[in-house]
């Protein structure tokens, strides 16, 4: 029973991790909590749904959702965040992000209604037995895809030129631009990658839980943020660990305590982390330049 719950937790946690990565990368580079990120995840789930209902196979749907959200994320950055960069206070940027979040979630709610839509059964799920542990093919799929994406991300960040640019910008935006890095393009790319990952998370959650609804982004977004903070905001491995940990803790909380408080678990963790160790598990204490 424990192992099943653990696997459950890791599966849920991988989707948190994928969303958390978007948060952490954007925060690392422009110090903005992208409130609208949860809505990107939600759009990913819906686009995946639409593609699947239109008859595409699941992998095409996944890819389609990722591409759509990549563009959506870049569009949001262009319209709502870039005009504020540099000249406005952090407060303004945060408020703008909230505005985008509300706009997007309401848009979907108006289009689809607020009720839950079911993902059609496209993947027959078979259950495997590993010793005394049961694991479903769906879980295996999700874990594999998530792992693949996370590894791919690490490779991009560490081994490619654009990845180096992203790392440089997250350390010092101004210096990077003085060194010839195209800051605008780097930031756009960061948003694009983060959004694509969130979309993947959305599609997989949609399939796994069989449900999508317009406000799913709010809750998941907040929890993923808690995960990012837990792991250390700004740290990519931190987001991965934070997401997985949070997923496991949430499932364990439901299994061994009560399910009515499940949503509160993430927030309780957030508050505890901020009180005890604000830089999270892997974050570093950043000294401000005065």
């Amino acid at each position, binding site marked *: 029973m424990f192992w099943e719950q653990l696997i459950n937790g890791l599966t849920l946690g991988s989707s948190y991790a994928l969303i958390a990565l978007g948060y952490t990368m954007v925060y690392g580079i422009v*110090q903005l*909590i992208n409130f609208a990120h949860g809505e990107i995840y939600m759009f990913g789930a819906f686009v995946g749904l639409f593609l699947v209902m239109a008859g595409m196979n699941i992998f095409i749907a996944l890819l389609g959702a990722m591409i759509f959200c990549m563009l959506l994320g870049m569009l949001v950055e262009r*319209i*709502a965040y870039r*005009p*504020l960069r540099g000249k*406005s*206070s*952090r*407060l*303004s*940027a*945060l*408020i*703008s992000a*909230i*505005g*985008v*979040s*509300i*706009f*997007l979630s*309401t*848009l979907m*709610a*108006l289009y689809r209604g607020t009720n839950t839509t079911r993902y059609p059964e496209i993947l027959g799920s078979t259950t495997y037995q590993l010793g005394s542990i049961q694991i479903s093919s769906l879980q295996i799929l999700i874990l594999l895809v998530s792992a693949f994406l996370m590894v791919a991300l690490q490779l991009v960040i560490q081994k490619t030129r654009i990845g180096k640019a992203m790392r440089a910008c997250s350390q010092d935006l101004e210096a990077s631009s003085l060194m010839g890095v195209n800051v605008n393009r780097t930031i756009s790319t960061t948003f694009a990658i983060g959004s694509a990952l969130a979309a993947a998370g959305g599609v997989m959650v949609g399939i796994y839980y069989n449900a999508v609804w317009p406000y799913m982004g*709010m809750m998941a977004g*907040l929890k993923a*943020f*808690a995960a990012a*903070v837990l792991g250390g905001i700004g740290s990519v491995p931190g987001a991965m660990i934070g997401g997985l940990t949070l997923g496991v803790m949430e499932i364990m909380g439901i299994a061994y305590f009560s399910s*009515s*408080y499940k*949503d*509160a678990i*993430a*927030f*309780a963790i*957030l*508050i505890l982390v*901020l*009180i005890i160790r*604000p830089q999270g598990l892997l974050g570093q204490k950043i000294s*401000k330049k*005065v």
Partner: protein
Amino acid sequence: MDAFLAQNIDAYYLRIMIFIGINIILALGLNLITGVTGQLSMGHAGFMSIGAYTSAILSLQFGSPFFVAILGGALVAAFFGFLIGIPTLRLDGDYLAMVTIGFAEIIRVFFLNFEPGGKAVGLSGIPQHTTFVTVWIIVIVVIILNRQLLYSRVGRSLYAIRENEIAAESCGINTTRMKVLAFTVGSLLGGLGGGLYAHYMYYINPQDFGFMKSIEILNMVVLGGMGSIPGTIVGVVILTLAPEVLRIVAQYRLLFYGALLVILMIFRPNGLLGDVRIYDLKKRWGKKGEKTWSS
């Protein structure tokens, strides 16, 4: 007085005026935290709900008189504001936003499961003590006290924290303590508004105090002018009336709010009245020898 009003003014308009009054109290509380001190709080509805439920329970279970119930609600809300504020306000402002959302969520989930609060069904039968007169007397007192606070030494230090926290520290301001103070007083006002709301609506349930409510109040502060009392009032009036006056706005209200926030931030981040400088106006109108903003 109320009887006079009830006879001579259409109940519909009275209702709107009462809502405007309650919203002013709520918005002034958030304005103190976010507009004046610059700390983005996204969970104001949480404090409103604490005030609403506490005061309702005091009235229903304990038969408390109106003012005791309202005060009780406000104080309990302030207490929680204090509790949340202390650990969180030590940190970067971004975190407060998220923590307040989380806090409001926890409160909402709590009340959904809270027996004496009626769980998801909520509480009904709350005595309707909130009237036009009671609300507006309280509103006027709140406005006066608020204004005095903002023009005092403490008020100046709050503005200073918003403008430049490090410089504020160098002036001897204990920024964490001040931020907690602002947050506590702001929450108190949130709880006060909640209590008045409960005793007007006769019925409350956790859905009334969700994230969207926090956003509504935030919009009023941001639209009108952050840090400015008249600005906040203008924001409240516009956004309380808008759904009534424009049917389209009512239906697509949230879409409108979202877009409004983005547009405001890009073009007029200080809200409608935030950038209107009394000094500039006076220069233009040639008024001499009058009391200025900073006197």
